[in-house]
């Protein structure tokens, strides 16, 4: 037989069909919408995948890379991550906050310790002013990278607003304390009761520390700019919550009015219900789902908080403002409310425009104004003016617009990374690699099974006291819920590209796939049929 007629098995591989290609598939991890929305930029997909594999501790470590407060944030964060979840186009969003809480609770119950990246002690010292979520988050990131951190706070207990103003039915004290202790245990020096400008001067801070992070939060309530208010029977929302959290006895009249449409107003109202009084929330904005009404803006409070409050018997009045406090002598008998057309004038100043003839009387023995708080820069005037180049960073509620605890945590992380870069003399780049987004249109949702969302159980006897309202998920539910993650833009090894390649150009290997560009003809089937949108088609130049 002539050698020319011998044809070896698989000899076609000598011919590289990859030459035909005009486009080529590329495996490309995306940054899913949950993480893009998360103010603390957690890699949610990554820790959910670890949780789905029941690698609970690894999941917790992954989560705490960005956020050392999973048990806390899982309870109080308004989970912006869940609203853009691509899963809502299939059934309903993944219950990310319940998963976060589950991991945090598990860490506290099992006493897990945070990872330390670098235990070579560095000589540089960092001062952090304010032991709230921003300050603690910054301290956590710095101390586990070997920097010595001193944390100053005017209060005796760390935690800032989390400790002083979040009601216990949303965040049990022991949970917060557990997570703060885990941070302080890494070796943060905490100086309670030390107010800058009083116990320690600005100059001393500058002299003793190489970098300063100001995270003083917002502790001063915004005053209601109405000349008729006197301080009798009138409280601020934050003042009310603080005195409640300090355990001071609160004596309430039968009926209370709360002014404001934010989460503080809802917190106050729900606390009032727990203390046994009737409460009406007077909100100048529109209810949820009405944001397209003329002039309308949606109320800023979280919609789940509002519906839970309504279920607890809180009355809500929308698009109304307090036009007058009604007194009989020193006694407050109620407030006069009226339809408010707009709250701020066109210069952005508070200047409500009430419509005449729409007035109503709301009886109330106490009116609580929960209309926002401001930072109190007293004693920090010079430092507040300094720039990052001068070694002063600012973050948290004091400067953020959203005033969310998760934003503060994210600010703390960002400041810590910026401080480290500055102390090392390196340029600071923040998460530049995480820009590629992914929407459900780039995904093939029919490849995912439908699976209902697991919710934490609501406790039945909610108004009896300040016990936690929502229970945590049991382990079986937590695992099921973690598996609901679509893994948007991140390969979960479903084998589709491998099965569907007509040219056997997708090679399966341990923990993933590889495209053999010698043979890939660029048909695009793998990208088209990838459930999670992990594969991009690029043109070949």
């Amino acid at each position: 037989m002539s050698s020319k007629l011998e044809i070896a098995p698989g000899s076609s591989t000598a011919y590289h069909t990859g030459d035909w290609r005009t486009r080529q598939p590329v495996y490309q991890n995306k940054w899913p919408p949950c993480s893009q929305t998360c103010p603390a930029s957690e890699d949610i997909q990554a820790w959910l995948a670890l949780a789905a594999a029941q690698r609970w501790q690894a999941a917790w470590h992954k989560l705490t890379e960005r956020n050392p407060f999973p048990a806390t944030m899982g309870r109080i964060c308004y989970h912006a991550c869940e609203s853009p979840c691509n899963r809502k186009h299939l059934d309903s969003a993944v219950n990310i906050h319940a998963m976060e809480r589950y991991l945090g609770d598990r860490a506290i119950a099992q006493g897990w310790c945070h990872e330390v990246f670098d235990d070579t002690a560095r000589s540089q010292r960092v001062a952090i002013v304010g032991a709230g979520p921003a300050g603690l988050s910054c301290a956590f990131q710095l101390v586990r990278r070997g920097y010595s951190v001193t944390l100053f706070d005017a209060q005796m207990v760390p935690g800032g607003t989390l400790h002083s103003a979040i009601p216990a039915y949303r965040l049990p004290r022991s949970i917060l304390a557990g997570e703060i202790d885990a941070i302080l245990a890494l070796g943060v020096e905490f100086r309670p009761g030390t107010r800058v400008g009083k116990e320690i001067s600005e100059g001393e801070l500058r002299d003793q520390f190489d970098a300063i992070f100001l995270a003083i939060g917002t502790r001063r309530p915004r005053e209601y700019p109405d000349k008729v208010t006197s301080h009798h029977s009138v409280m601020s929302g934050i003042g009310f919550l603080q005195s409640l959290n300090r355990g001071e006895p609160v004596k309430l009249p039968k009926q209370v009015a709360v002014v404001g449409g934010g989460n503080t107003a809802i917190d106050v109202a729900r606390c009032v219900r727990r203390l046994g009084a009737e409460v009406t929330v007077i909100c100048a904005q529109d209810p949820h789902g009405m944001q397209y009404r003329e002039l309308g803006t949606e109320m800023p409070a979280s919609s789940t908080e509002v519906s839970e409050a309504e279920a607890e018997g809180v009355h809500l009045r929308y698009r109304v403002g307090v036009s007058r406090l009604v007194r009989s002598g020193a006694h407050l008998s109620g407030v006069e409310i009226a339809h408010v057309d707009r709250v701020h004038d066109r210069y952005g100043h508070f200047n409500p425009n009430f419509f005449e003839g729409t007035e109503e009387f709301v009886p109330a023995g106490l009116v609580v104004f929960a209309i926002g708080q401001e930072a109190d820069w007293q004693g920090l005037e010079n430092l507040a003016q300094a720039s990052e180049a001068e070694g002063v960073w600012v973050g948290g509620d004091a400067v953020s617009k959203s005033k969310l605890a998760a934003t503060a945590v994210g600010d703390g992380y960002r400041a810590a990374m910026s401080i480290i870069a500055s102390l090392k003399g390196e340029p600071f780049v923040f998460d530049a690699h995480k820009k590629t987004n992914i929407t459900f249109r780039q995904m093939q949702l029919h490849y995912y099974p439908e699976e209902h969302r697991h919710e934490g159980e609501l406790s039945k006897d909610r108004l009896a006291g300040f016990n936690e309202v929502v229970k945590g998920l049991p382990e079986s539910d937590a695992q099921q819920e973690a598996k609901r993650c679509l893994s948007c833009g991140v390969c979960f090894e479903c084998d589709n590209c491998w099965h569907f390649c007509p040219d056997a150009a997708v090679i399966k290997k341990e923990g993933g796939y590889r495209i053999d560009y010698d043979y890939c003809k660029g048909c695009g089937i793998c990208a088209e049929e990838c459930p999670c949108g992990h594969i991009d088609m690029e043109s070949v130049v």
Partner: protein
Amino acid sequence: MDKRDPFRHNVLTSGHRACSGCGEAMAARMVTDLVGPDAIYVNATGCLQVFSSHNQQSAWQAPWVHSVFANAAAVASGVEAALRARGKETPVVVQAGDGGTFDIGLQCLSGMIERGHNVLFVCYDNEAYMNTGVQRSGSTPHAVRTSTSPPGLFSQGKQQLKKDVLSIMAAHHMPYAATATIAYFPDLKAKVEKAMGIRGPRFLQILSPCPLGWAHDSALSVTVARLAVETGLFPLVELEHGELTGVMRLAGQKPVDDYLRPQGRFKHLFTGKEGAVELRHIQALADARIRRYNLLEADTQWDTASALRCARHGRGGYVSSSLSVSQGVDNVL
């Protein structure tokens, strides 16, 4: 031998000359990897034979025989009889296109089944003679544009219906005859494995979209095959000894427009009144098939939704070949 992939044998490996996005290449790779390298493959003339054995190169990594267009089933009968005479149990698989099955190869196929040879006959159905330039075949569906059924003043593509070859096969009272597509790998796998567990003649018709002949984007081969099932135009059914023993239920019926629109071979139906009549005709054909096989209500193991489901870390690979990987491919061979 090419052993790039540790999880699969790649009986039909890379370097073959199929068009980009070829559904038939995909189907053949799936089927042959499920059957495994320890089998004898007889290939009728057609696209698959042409693109896999080119220029003194072969993309096959298993014993493979090319027959002429008409007699693949007869060659396989002979191979099987010879193996039987030598006391061997090596599986014999025929691969043919729709031309080599519906039209030119039908006589030999019928004879092979009637004589009861222990052969699996796989028809990769791409609904026309693609290899020679998209001429109409007995498998070409109604109203399709091909180079020999061009739409124009007097016709809206092919005037006749697609030949119901499965019923012809089933009428032979054969042990197993089934339809499958490339879009539902778990279903295809189950059917190939079931067929390999049965003695006697077995027939598998696999819908394999052809981006060139069907004129759709090469990336849509799987999507189009899936839509053919989801609209009811291509029912996935199993027949044993002529009796309907399994269907894949439709999780929901999709309008045939969804299937027709991505394909250029149906483009003429979307302009003009005559086209609209044919669209209604095709929808009625889909409805009739759904009624005939009770596709919406059948009590089945899975439906078109659940058969698609992806799982983390795969949903079943090529069991036989992954076994041989762990034991070393050569030992098994």
